[in-house]
């Protein structure tokens, strides 16, 4: 080992491992390294299996946390001052424009990544309980993941309310009114969301506190649980269908060390089978890949922030509503749903806000939540990309995803003033008037 390497190691390490294997064995002595297992199969680690979307989402969350704290030094959650502090961030604060853009881009990317991650988990059947895995509970982890998806969207929603620009004001107005459409308790929900009967200072401080403290804390806790569950489940679902080598006679008994074993002087044994796949030690193979993912995620966020700006609409004003008033892309499909389900039939108006804004999304979430328990496909489809035996459910799932994508496309590209359909080549009227 070179002298410089020895020096830097002597600063940070109390003992220096002589090899990668020894470094990996340090897992047993180090709480941080306990996060990941000492060995991972090549299949779990492969780019093609998971695209590392979970890790990317976590890294984006970390970027959001760091840039978010910096923004907290400048932002003031007051209806009079919020907008001006954002303008200060854009034009006065050193590197403020860049930090704000990184925050916004990481937010959009995180919503996209957790969504893609969910799609990957579904299509690989990684949410399913497999009979061999007695101690695992992958359906539970799917539920935690769903909760994280909802939290990500909530974090994003509470976040873009903070600049108190026109987008913020009218997004809360619409959201609160959709909440009001819930029968019986709707008005109460809206009152709680707004902190009153009007959207004012109470509203802003509620959403600010949710965004910077409550939701991040819950999200961090759930992320920790989510990753812990992966270890408890034995690793990624990719390992479930790796062929197991037949061992002559019984399974191989082996030693394992547990806290109980050390304290009580008892050493329990586990039975293990050899799996037919190459494995790699955490150091260096997996750590190396984590480094690459970290670099690329940061690079993409910084690249986008250098060359693409993020919007800031005019200061919030109740006197006029932007025309058209569009939600951010990940909510546009809901906005389209609300439009589509607002139907007038023979004098009766179907409340699109309730049907498209509450019922349909609610049913989708509910369906996603119970699906692991309704899924009847065989164990051989766990941890496998697009297996034959799951072609129907995968197709239906993909159709739903595509439908959501189409709705997002319509909402972002084809909708113009007064929410009319305008083809890309049709010009919007300069002064939209009521027809």
């Amino acid at each position, binding site marked *: 080992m070179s002298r410089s390497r020895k020096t830097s190691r002597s600063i940070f390490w109390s003992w220096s491992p002589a090899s990668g294997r020894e470094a990996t064995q340090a897992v047993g002595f180090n709480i941080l390294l306990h996060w990941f297992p000492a060995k991972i199969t090549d299949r779990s680690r492969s780019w093609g299996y998971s695209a590392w979307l979970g890790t990317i989402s976590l890294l984006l969350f970390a970027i959001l946390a760091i840039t978010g704290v*910096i923004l907290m030094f*400048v932002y003031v959650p007051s209806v009079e001052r919020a907008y001006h502090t954002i303008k200060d961030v854009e034009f*006065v604060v050193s*590197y403020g424009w860049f*930090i704000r853009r990184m925050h916004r881009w990481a937010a959009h990317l995180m919503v996209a990544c957790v969504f893609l991650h969910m799609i990957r988990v579904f299509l690989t059947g990684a949410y399913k309980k497999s009979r061999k895995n007695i101690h695992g509970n992958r359906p539970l982890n799917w539920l935690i993941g769903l909760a994280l998806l909802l939290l990500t969207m909530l974090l994003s929603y509470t976040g873009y309310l903070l600049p108190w620009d026109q987008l913020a004001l009218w997004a809360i107005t619409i959201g609160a009114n959709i909440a009001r459409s819930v029968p019986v308790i709707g008005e109460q929900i809206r009152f709680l969301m707004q902190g009153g009967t009007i959207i004012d200072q109470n509203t802003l401080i509620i959403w600010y506190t949710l965004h910077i403290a409550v939701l991040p804390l819950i999200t961090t806790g759930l992320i920790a649980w989510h990753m812990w569950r992966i270890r408890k489940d034995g690793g990624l679902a990719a390992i479930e269908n790796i062929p197991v080598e037949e061992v002559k006679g019984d399974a191989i008994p082996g030693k394992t060390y547990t806290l109980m074993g050390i304290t009580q002087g008892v050493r329990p044994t586990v039975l293990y089978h050899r799996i037919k796949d190459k494995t790699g030690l955490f150091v260096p193979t997996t750590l190396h890949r984590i480094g690459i993912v970290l670099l690329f995620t940061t690079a993409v966020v910084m690249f986008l922030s250098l060359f693409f700006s993020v919007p800031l609409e005019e200061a919030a004003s109740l006197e006029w509503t932007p025309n058209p008033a569009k939600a951010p892309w990940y909510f546009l499909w809901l906005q389209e749903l609300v439009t589509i389900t607002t139907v007038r039939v023979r004098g009766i108006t179907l409340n699109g806000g309730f049907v498209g804004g509450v019922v349909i999304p609610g049913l989708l979430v509910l369906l996603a939540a119970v699906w692991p328990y309704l899924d009847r496909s065989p164990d051989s489809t766990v941890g496998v990309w697009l297996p034959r035996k799951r072609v129907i459910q995968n197709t239906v799932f993909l159709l739903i995803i595509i439908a959501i994508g189409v709705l997002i496309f319509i909402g972002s590209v084809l909708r113009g003033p007064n929410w009319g359909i305008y083809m890309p080549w049709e010009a919007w009227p300069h002064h939209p008037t009521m027809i």
Partner: protein
Amino acid sequence: MTTTEQQGEAVKVTRKKFLKILTSVTIGGAIFGNLYMLLRSIRPNVLYEPLKKMLIGKPKKYPEGQVFLPKERMFVIRKGNEFNTVSAVCTHLGCTVKEVKLAKPEKITLPDGRVIVQEWEYHCPCHGSKFRGDGTAYAGPAPEDLPPFDMKIAPDGDILVDAGKKVDKDFRLKV
């Protein structure tokens, strides 16, 4: 022994080592650059504080004697047609001093030899610092005297006090 190793012995920096150095420098630079950006952004470039130059109204508004201006944290003293100001911020740790009216005017000889007649003194409630009527500190932990500020008449007739500019104790604005 492979050729590369043989060459590595002759050349100080191998290709592998060069790339390692390049990578470390780039990543190190990126980390340092980001940290610098994040921390530098917290330091304000623009201050939204009240100005040190303050308009305090027309001279005819001020009666004979002294007036305490709480927002500007200073005393405005008028003797006939002459004005002067004394800062009300205690030089010890920044509390606002209190005016203490004396039972009868006192003649005080200051340490530098000057003699003044004062009708009031300034006492600080926080740690007991005491100042003469002209701001001279004579008791307590205060390290310096209460400074007087520069004054002039603004174009519209108001008195303009510059709390960023200190003047001598015998400075007077003549109206």
